[in-house]
């Protein structure tokens, strides 16, 4: 049986602080110059090393190398993907720039590649202090551009990272979600400890798959809670609001949910609450079918009845 699955994209623009060596390297690229790191053995590393691999001392000596170099190794990328330097088929190559002792990796815009091929940097239209200031390499030669002034190091480079995943549910999650679609809440009982888990899952205390399916009530009690007064990244509601642990009648473990329809300051431990479902026409295989919980007006549950769930 195929269980429910859905896409998940995670994306963030990372802000990379560069430090003195990479900061100067990126500043060089912005000015269409390539700087290499000279280490104690006299070798020039491009891309630069921040620390000398032999002495472990910080690298301080940056020297300019040529924007032209030789292909040391290569491969062909027939199907470019999101984020790569070119959106048409291109080559990847390890390129040793003239004046450098180590090769760097970059894209080459050419119809064919071979080891020993001479290539030069094609600069991006506008430099911003980023490795992508090198748009790619292309066949040909070019000389060093002699600019004498000192470079102000780049402090931060921004790197967007965007990844796509397919999220797959377990058989138990799938069963739970399909019940929610029908307005029911189900749990499953652990065959070892007999506890009812909502949502159903492998029993974390016993490490065994659950068996008997148990329908639980859409009402229960608040065991404990917090009042969220603070805005933060990724938040969906406007503070203040109450997030509570709600122990549903018939379940042996609380779920986390919102308590609305009451002043935040009036929510209490032991308060009886019931689910408020969103309009039936919008039900689907999602926990969002339950919009929030609200007080029922029943007397509070005694402390002893939920103390073991704190």
């Amino acid at each position, binding site marked *: 049986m195929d269980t*429910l699955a859905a896409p998940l994209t995670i994306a963030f623009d*990372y*802000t990379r*602080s560069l430090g003195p060596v990479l900061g100067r390297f990126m500043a060089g690229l912005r000015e269409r110059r390539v700087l290499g790191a000279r280490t104690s053995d006299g070798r020039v590393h491009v891309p630069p090393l921040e620390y000398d691999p032999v002495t472990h001392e910080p690298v301080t000596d940056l020297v300019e190398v040529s924007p032209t170099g030789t292909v040391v190794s290569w491969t062909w990328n027939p199907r470019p993907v999101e984020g790569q330097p070119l959106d048409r088929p291109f080559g990847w190559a390890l390129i040793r720039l003239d004046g450098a002792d180590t090769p760097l990796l970059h894209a080459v815009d050419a119809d064919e590649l071979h080891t020993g091929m001479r290539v030069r940097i094609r600069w991006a239209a506008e430099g911003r202090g980023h490795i992508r200031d090198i748009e790619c390499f292309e066949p040909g030669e070019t000389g060093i551009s002699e600019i004498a002034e000192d470079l102000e190091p780049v402090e931060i480079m921004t790197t967007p990272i965007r990844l796509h995943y397919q999220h797959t549910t377990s058989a138990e999650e799938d069963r739970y979600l399909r019940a929610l679609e029908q307005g029911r809440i189900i749990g499953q009982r652990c065959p070892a400890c007999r506890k009812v888990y909502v949502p159903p899952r492998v029993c974390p205390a016993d490490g065994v798959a659950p068996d008997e399916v148990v329908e639980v009530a859409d009402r229960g009690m608040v065991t404990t809670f*917090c009042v969220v007064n603070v805005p933060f990244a990724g938040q969906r509601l406007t503070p203040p609001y109450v997030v509570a642990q709600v122990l549903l009648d018939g379940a042996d473990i609380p779920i986390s949910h919102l308590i609305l329809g009451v002043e935040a300051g009036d929510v209490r*431990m032991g308060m009886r609450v019931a689910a408020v479902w969103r309009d039936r026409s919008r039900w689907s295989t999602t926990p969002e079918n339950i919009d929030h919980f609200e007080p029922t007006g029943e007397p509070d549950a005694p402390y002893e009845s939920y103390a*073991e769930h704190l």
Partner: protein
Amino acid sequence: MRRAAVLGTGQTEHRTRRTDVSMAGLCREAIDRALADAGTAWDQIDAVVLGKAPDLFEGVMMPELFLADAIGAAGKPLLRVHTAGSVGGATAIVATSLIRAGVHRRVLAVAFEKQSESNAMWALSIQPPFSAPITAGAGGYFAPHIRSYIRKSHAPEHIGALVAVKDRRNGALNPHAHLQQPDITLESVQRSPMLWDPIRYDETCPSSDGACAVVIGDQAAAEASSRQVAWIRATAMRTEPTFYSGKDHVNPRAGSTAARAVFKAAGIEDPLDDIDVAELYVPFSWFEPMWLENVGFVGQGQGWKLVESGETRIGGALPVNPSGGVLCSNPIGASGLLRFAEAAMQVMGRAGKHQVPGAATALGHAYGGGSQFFSMWVVGRQP
């Protein structure tokens, strides 16, 4: 069992954004200081253990790989530990095992977090499909358990603020600490905004960039050291699930079990009497009384009384978090190792203005996940 000792420690200046350094630079600031403190040369390091919390924080998958060269691990064995918030402690413990197993003589343990590369709250609130959109933020997970503690122990409301005042004033004695608040008062903490009721702003940890490193050596390396070392008398790690029916979130079994194990192995019968200083992982002020009970310094419901009596200040019966603790600096992946390193610095007599006079035996403590991963060590002036 073979003996192991901390030969030296180092840490960065912890700040919200260390935009002056790269990730390698951040690690090296801590490592270079640890090597200097230990009197250890690069070629004496046999292996490196790196700890860090989620890779999504920096957007680098297994960053120890690209860092291998800069942190001196190239050509050597390199391990990468990740046990959530307890990872710094786990990193020190894995390094200790490398010595105790007789495999190596000197091991470098380093832990870091560069939170300013992204936003931890973003990384932690990624909502997988089919999950309930109930986001409460970092404090929102722990605030309900603090409420439970207050209900169970009948602690008065100002206890959390007392801890915050103590830790922030301790942090003002520690030049590395991120937050420097020598003038903080009970009243100013109580006036700060209520973020996740019952947690106020001044009772929460900051978000920091930072790193910590320690050099751990075998008995011969320790005996060859010209300076006082911190002998590792015992280590322990314990884990339980995030949630299970009947889990005690206030007094988690994994924490009490780890504490019993570490004290037994260290030959400590009465922790309150035998431990001179404790660095406990307290990201929200109320966790100090909770962990005092969980670790077994005092009985159930008594932790807040020890706090209220002032005995957890420097000069008290059990100084807790003389460094200022997590409440003053929180580079997540390094926070546990900072606790372990501070315990070592105290018994080595190298804690500067936050030195607890005469500290001979110290506890380092870290926890992570949903109060489920615990790591601890006991270090002493004597083996």
